[in-house]
């Protein structure tokens, strides 16, 4: 008989802060939702519309009019996709990953794996977020260097490249490798989901403790008990190094009976989940759990920060990714206002080079280095005032969430700003898609903003302030949690840091926007 790998005794492993915690409201209790999520093709239902959109993006991007505001590629990717991503993250969770059309490559990769038999383990050195950090900065840099936002053609190629990369990665390596260790978009979502109001959780931890094979993680194959030997002889499905287990039909308490149900591709184990990090909301765990024991718990947006979910896991790279996203978010927003171009010109003169790429690389390097140093110093100061003797790395892990909350604020404000400016343009842009190809459609370009333009600043500033306030509050909570009475002192450096970043963000949002593809003006 095959030895089934198990994740150990969940009861013994249960983290202390989870024990006794009530699940709170389970979103899957909303009538119909659990049934929908449990349905085998639920994800497909959301992926198909996005796939169709991706096809439009590629078609119009490659062959349509090369004018960003008139093209489906640039409009839907840089306005709608990004707008919906931050809206969903703020109000629901990582909904984009849930409906990610890239995961439709799962069929082809499985087939390619079978035909070629090439799957190998993802290299151990890459099993962290450092590679993702590099890919993220590469993405943000090329966004500026090639002005991706202004080129439908490059935007289309970006989408094609994404599909290719997902296909290649998940063919050569275990399924889920792309999401967890490669995809810059997914990891951007993972970081911003830090403040999302929902998270996967086990309903009853005692059920998990008694659960023998942990199908939510490993996956399961279910059939009549008599077929067990047959299935096991055939080699149950393997995802990476994890072999699904056989669960007899009479053990499954819900309608998802017979069939193969994969487990968590990003390696999350439901009863130990305390963070949305790496959760793509694929709900594989809901489908695989034979005991219907998985909930989508509603939580307070600051819960993950205050419960120290990242620090407990020693996710140093994850925390650095969050801090860097704060500074890159500031830079990305700055790149849309006039003073940015003056700074770029000054830097260009200093470097004695008129190469845009060089100036941008220097700018990113500078901002990353100064930002990291400043953040670390502030956090370390907080630790000192609290009386902690540990090094700066421990301080970064302790306070990291504060920077992440600020990052969420900046990206949300920025993306929503664009979304609200031109959301309704999607109507004429699609009409134009057909008009451009000879259909008798009369395009009306007057559709535009969702809100009066005079509101935009207040909405942006409001969002940034809200998250700024949350970040400062988190700083106070973390200080009081870790330092008791001394927390009254320890909270100040980090709290003021939150205030300062928020003030800068609001100032940036108050500047008149200036959109330029050329960083440096004509040589004079």
């Amino acid at each position, binding site marked *: 008989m095959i030895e089934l790998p198990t994740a150990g005794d969940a009861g013994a492993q249960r983290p202390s802060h989870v024990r006794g915690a009530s699940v709170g409201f389970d979103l899957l209790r909303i009538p119909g939702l659990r049934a929908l999520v449990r349905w085998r093709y639920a994800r497909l239902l959301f992926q198909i519309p996005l796939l169709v959109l991706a096809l439009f993006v590629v078609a119009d991007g490659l062959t349509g009019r090369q004018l960003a505001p008139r093209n489906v590629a640039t409009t839907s990717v840089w306005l709608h996709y990004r707008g919906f991503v931050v809206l969903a993250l703020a109000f629901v969770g990582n909904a984009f990953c849930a409906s990610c059309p890239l995961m439709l490559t799962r069929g082809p990769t499985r087939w390619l794996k079978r035909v070629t038999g090439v799957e190998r383990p993802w290299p151990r050195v890459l099993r962290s977020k450092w590679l993702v950090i590099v890919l993220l900065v590469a993405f943000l840099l090329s966004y500026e260097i090639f002005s991706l936002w202004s080129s439908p*053609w490059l935007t289309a190629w970006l989408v094609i490249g994404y599909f290719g990369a997902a296909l290649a990665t998940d063919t050569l390596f275990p399924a889920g490798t792309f999401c967890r260790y490669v995809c810059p978009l997914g990891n951007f979502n993972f970081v911003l989901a830090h403040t999302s109001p929902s998270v996967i959780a086990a309903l009853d931890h005692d059920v998990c403790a008694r659960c023998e094979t942990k199908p939510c993680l490993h996956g399961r194959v279910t059939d009549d008990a008599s077929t067990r030997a047959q299935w096991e002889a055939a080699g149950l499905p393997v995802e990476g190094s994890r072999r699904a287990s056989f669960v007899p039909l009479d053990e499954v308490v819900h309608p998802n009976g017979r069939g193969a149900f994969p487990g968590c591709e990003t390696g999350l184990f439901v009863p130990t989940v305390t963070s949305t990090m790496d959760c793509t909301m694929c709900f594989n765990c809901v489908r695989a759990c034979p005991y219907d024991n998985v909930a989508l718990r509603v939580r307070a947006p600051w819960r993950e920060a205050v419960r120290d979910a990242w620090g407990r896991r020693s996710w140093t790279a994850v925390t650095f990714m969050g801090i860097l996203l704060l500074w890159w978010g500031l830079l990305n927003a700055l790149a849309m206002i006039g003073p940015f171009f003056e700074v770029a010109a000054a830097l260009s003169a200093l470097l004695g080079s008129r190469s845009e790429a060089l100036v941008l690389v220097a700018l990113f390097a500078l901002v990353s280095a100064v930002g990291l140093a400043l953040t670390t110093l502030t956090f370390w100061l907080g630790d000192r005032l609290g009386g902690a003797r540990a090094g700066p790395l421990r301080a970064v892990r302790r306070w990291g969430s504060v920077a992440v909350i600020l990052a969420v604020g900046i990206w949300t404000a920025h993306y929503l700003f664009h979304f609200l400016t031109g959301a309704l343009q999607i109507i004429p842009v699609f009409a134009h898609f057909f008009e451009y190809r000879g259909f008798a459609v009369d395009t009306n370009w007057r559709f535009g903003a969702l809100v009066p333009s005079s509101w935009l600043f207040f909405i942006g500033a409001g969002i940034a302030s809200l998250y700024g306030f949350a970040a400062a509050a988190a700083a106070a909570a973390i200080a009081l949690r870790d330092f008791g009475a001394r927390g009254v002192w320890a909270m100040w450096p980090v709290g003021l840091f939150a205030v300062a970043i928020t003030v800068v963000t609001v100032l940036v949002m108050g500047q008149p926007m200036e959109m330029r593809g050329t960083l440096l003006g004509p040589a004079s």
Partner: protein
Amino acid sequence: MKVSSPVPGTVALRRVSRWLLSILLATSVVACRPPEAGGGDASRTVSARVIDDSPRTGPATIEVEVLRDGERVAGASVRVTGDMTHAGMIPVVSDAVDLGDGRYRTESFAFTMAGDWILSVDVTYPDAVTRQVSVPLSVGR
């Protein structure tokens, strides 16, 4: 000739990869360079300029010259559209007034934001032939 297949599925794989390759080649023909607008005969030319040398945010007057075989053509209809290079920005559209000598001038055109703009001029000649030209433009604060 029959190709023997050592592993089931290799023939299918080969067929699919050949198929994929041909799609890739086909797309690269259209996709190796962004498509460009334009074309048509060279006898009809349109030129547009902003009266102000260094355009700024706010109202701007744009003058268009419509030519055919080097001669100015009156009686055409001319529409000037300004687009920003960022998605979501609502285009600024203005119909130009015929000055009578083959020159046309917009009246209520305004740049709504500083940055990179593309001015597109759509001309319908008196004989119903249409032309479109686009000019990139940098608008200051």
